[in-house]
């Protein structure tokens, strides 16, 4: 979905998100968070899958309608923190959404994009990443496309070769078990990893303390201190 949001588009950084009120009614009552997928001038894109009431309503919006949007929110990915010579982006399912914006910012650098899903039909954005010049590798649980297995297995497979490009950096977004595995791999190979977490949010602006994740320094708010965290800070 393309939103015309001049101010947000100007400020948004990869990994940041928007809080969208999809309807004026009480159903749903709360806003829903969506990662910034891409920015094109004044336009900002979000990418979502219809999984519930809110996304169902969103999917029925017509061109030209107004949406109530707050953003950009949260802390995004920090770029080139290690001046890494190779950046590896790892996406699980819809985790591609915020990583596209990141890949655009990293387009000038050497980077690889690993996309994993259960099956071929759930692989999104392969072509879009390739159009950016990304080196894209696919994994599917059922082997219907690319490497057969988890995307984290694919990561482990390419690491021995990639490691010659050290320093490396990993950026990941996807389901929690995948991110936990990314943390383990990051520690094992001593590669810094930034992961984008999801948690149920009520406000998205740091007020309700609802969306916490356990970190070495205690609970942190996914919406405010996150959604992007250094993988080694998270207590799983």
């Amino acid at each position, binding site marked *: 979905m393309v939103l015309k949001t001049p101010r947000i588009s100007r400020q948004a950084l990869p990994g940041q998100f928007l809080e969208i009120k999809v309807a004026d009614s*009480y159903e749903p009552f*709360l*806003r829903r968070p969506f990662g910034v997928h891409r920015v094109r001038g004044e336009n900002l894109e979000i990418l979502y899958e219809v999984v519930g009431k809110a996304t169902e309503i969103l999917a029925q919006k017509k061109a030209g309608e107004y949406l109530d949007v707050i953003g950009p929110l949260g802390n995004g990915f920090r770029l080139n923190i290690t001046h890494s010579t190779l950046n590896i982006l790892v996406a699980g399912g819809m985790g591609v959404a915020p990583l596209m914006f990141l890949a655009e910012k990293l387009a000038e650098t050497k980077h690889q994009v690993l996309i994993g899903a259960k099956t071929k039909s759930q692989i999104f954005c392969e072509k879009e990443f390739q159009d950016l010049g990304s080196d894209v590798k696919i994994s599917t649980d059922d082997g219907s496309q690319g490497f057969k297995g988890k995307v984290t297995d694919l990561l482990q497979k390419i690491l021995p070769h990639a490691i010659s490009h050290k320093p490396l950096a990993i950026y990941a977004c996807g389901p929690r078990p995948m991110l936990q595995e990314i943390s383990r791999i990051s520690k094992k190979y001593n590669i810094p990893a930034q992961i984008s977490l999801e948690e149920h949010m*009520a406000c998205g*602006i740091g*007020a309700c303390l*609802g*969306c916490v994740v356990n970190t070495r320094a205690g609970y942190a708010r996914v919406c405010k201190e996150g959604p992007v965290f250094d993988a080694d800070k998270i207590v799983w």
Partner: protein
Amino acid sequence: MGMNPNVQVIIGRLKLKNPVLVASGTFGYAQEFTHFIDLKKLGAIVTKTITLHPRKGNPAPRTCETPAGMLNSIGLENPGLEVFIQEKLPFLKKIGVPIIISIASEEDPEEFIVLVKRLTKIKEASAIELNISCPNIGHKSLIAQDSKAAYNLIRAVRKVTTKTLITKLSPNVTDITEAALAAQNAGSDAISLINTLTGMSIDVETKKPRLSTITGGLSGPAIRPIAVRMVWEVYQKIKIPIIGMGGIIDTFSALEFFLAGATAIAIGSANFVQPRITIEIIAGLKKYLAENKIKDIRVLVGALKV
């Protein structure tokens, strides 16, 4: 035109320039809202509840959406009294509106006395709200569910402070007027009505509760009719002012509470959805009064026609 209705109200020894507050726990310590509103315009700010010692709070998931509302089980996460005073209060006092400090005890109700004694010495603490009704700290029963215990506690607190005392009551009781009378008789200057209702939601696919603590507090428009009813019941029995809250999302839902007997209102979960809602409701109330040629908001308090 040109009519400028009075919206000033008095709660205990507090003079509020307007009757719109924020409900404890829905506004953090106000910092998060600076990007959205001019905090100076609020009637008063009620802080997230402070305990004597820091509290980590409950594990995630702490919130989930429910029909026309939400459940929460934050577990009173807060930095504790001393860190609050050092790190949060300086920002709050600069705002220039009355600051109502919400406090709770964890194990021993005596903690209330320690908290109140300390806060009494702090000029910037305009008033104290006694949160004796948080459903999410693992206690089987709440002080607010035992009128005798509530009476004894408020009486003990009253003896150690001259600050305005507001008691926040729980709707999870058979007769809300009993608790309200106990609070009044013990010396509370006002009462806040209502805290969240205990609720529960289940993910049918996983057969798991949708909150880590299984049950939590229900808020939002879903609870508004219960809140309005309780304000009305209590209004008829007590003389001290009521701060009404529970599912207020716009000017008209705010007006319901005044008509039922609230002197002031607080916005809760709606802050999560529309961070500017407080300011919109303040303007909306003034507009309503002017349009209906009502000179003073106090005329509306308990003006329900029956």
